[in-house]
């Protein structure tokens, strides 16, 4: 069972953050979302079992970012931001 971590905050639509627990750019993205006070769901791919992370990558991440690198943030099932981009995140959610 894959468990997303929900962070409470202002509702700016459906915000999902696919990340790695060891990745510093992913941590910076989480911090930025926390600073903006936005509600979001986040998942650390590297903390799942191999089968679970393969499934998530194949069924979800690949659709938005075929390179499968992190952080990959998907907003409202319509736009993806790959990598840490303060400007893009603020423009979309700030």
């Amino acid at each position: 069972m894959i468990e997303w971590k929900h962070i409470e905050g202002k509702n700016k639509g459906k915000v999902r953050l696919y990340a790695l627990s060891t990745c510093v750019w992913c941590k910076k993205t989480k911090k930025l979302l926390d600073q903006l006070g936005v509600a979001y769901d986040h998942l650390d791919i590297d903390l799942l079992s191999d089968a679970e992370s393969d499934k998530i990558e194949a069924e979800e991440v690949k659709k938005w970012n075929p390179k499968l690198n992190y952080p990959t943030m998907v907003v409202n099932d319509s736009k993806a931001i790959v990598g840490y981009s303060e400007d893009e995140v603020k423009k979309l959610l700030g």
Partner: protein
Amino acid sequence: MATQAEIDKLYEKLDREAEAGGYHLNPDIEFAKDLAAGLLTNEERYGYQACPCRRASGIKEEDLDIICPCDYRDPDLNQYEACYCALYVSGRIKRGESQAHTIPERRPPKEVRDKMKEEQEKKAKEGKGLSILPLPVWRCKVCGYLCAREEPPEVCPICKATKERFERFI
């Protein structure tokens, strides 16, 4: 989980080795130490220091190219002044004249990597040209160091990458 003392120790070793080889760690020490912690986490998890900013497969042979320092560090330093995770940066960034930021992923997807490896092996097998050389030439895939000897060295004398990171060049 690594202790702060272990993280500090790895950071100091990486910094020393980087400077000795003409490389630089990210001047944001907190950022660099966070990456050092990630390397230790991955060492514990997989048995080797895979890049903290990439998903490792856990199969060492498949992850050789992303063991830190990765095969993509030097081209990324040339093009973007920082490696993918930004542990390593250019002299300009080190001196505070520029800043590290997220860069695109240079590592090809698995299907492409598998194909490249197959072609490389085929080429080496065919052994075209230069076959009169008395010794094979080995290339360190991390820093480009070349040496002509029966086998690659145990550790690259320039960047400290291990023997398995070498490829037959000629």
